């Protein structure tokens, strides 16, 4: 089951992506109990709009075709509950940047961090222009400030301590 969950998590890079996916799961749970029980969930999800929804629906459809997706409503509910729990437990790296990152740079960051930590990582990106450059990193309760503002402050402190 965890392999299936990982396939969903691969579609998630940022905290915003995770929130959207969790909303989609909630909607899928609701739709599972609407209409005829024999109708595949992917058909019901077709009513949902937006690219992200289409991606989610596509994944459900693939699983249905592969025969990996549970057929009964109760099993589907259990599947989605497990998926929500798995996604919510993924570790988050918070990065405070001085600029708004592009999608490509987010991919680069996610790939780098997943390689270094050997774990699936959710990026929580905040933009604060006043840090000038560099970034602030927070991971599992640890915090580091690698911003240019911090460097400037260090220079200022050093300068102020000179006789």
């Amino acid at each position, binding site marked *: 089951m965890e392999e299936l969950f990982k396939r969903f998590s691969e579609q998630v890079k940022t905290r915003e992506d995770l929130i959207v996916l969790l909303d989609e799961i909630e909607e899928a749970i609701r739709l599972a109990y609407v209409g005829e029980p024999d109708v595949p969930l992917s058909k019901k999800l077709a009513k949902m709009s937006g690219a992200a929804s289409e991606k989610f629906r596509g994944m459900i459809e693939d699983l249905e075709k592969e025969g990996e997706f549970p057929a009964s409503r109760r099993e589907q509910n259990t599947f989605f509950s497990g998926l929500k729990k798995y996604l919510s437990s993924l570790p988050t790296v918070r990065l405070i940047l001085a600029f708004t990152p592009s999608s490509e740079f987010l991919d680069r960051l996610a790939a780098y961090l997943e390689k270094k930590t050997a774990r699936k990582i959710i990026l929580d990106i905040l933009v604060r222009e006043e840090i000038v450059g560099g970034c602030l*990193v927070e991971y599992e309760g640890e915090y580091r400030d690698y911003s240019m503002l911090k460097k*400037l402050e260090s220079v200022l402190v050093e300068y102020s301590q000179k006789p």
Partner: protein
Amino acid sequence: MRYAITRRGNDILTKTITVAQEIIRNAIAASQKNLRASETFQEELAQMMREGTAQNLSESKKIIQSATNDIVDAYQKQFSVLSREVEASGRFAHNQFLEATKKRTDDLSAGIQGELGKMRQELEEKLLAGMQEAQAGAKVYQEQKIKELDAKIYQILGEIAKKTFGRSVDLSTHEELVMEALEKAKKENLF
């Protein structure tokens, strides 16, 4: 005969009248005498009564005077004794009161001195604690103000940096700075 009888009757009547007159005169005289005696006796009796009354009154006055004097003397003596006793008791009570007052005053004096000493000590301790608290508060305030000042300086510095060379940093440089930072974090075992 008839005449004789009449005459005899007249004689008898005359004699009777005479006798009657005599009796009446005697009776009147006796009555007058008795009346005079009675008046005399009344006068004497009144006199005696007056004298007796006067005498009684005089004697009564004397008795009352004497009794009054006796009573007054007795009361004077009694009061004299009582006064002395009261005076003695008063003097005793006065002395007792003075002694008790003196003792109480001494006790209070000692108590007040103790309390004053204690109050002074407490006041000194409170003043010292207050001074220490004020100094600590001043220090905290000073540190707080310095922190606020620092924060303000850094904020201004950030604003200046952002407006000057922040804009000159292009996107690729930003990205490289971030990747360098992550490399540094890895070296520091952050992850």
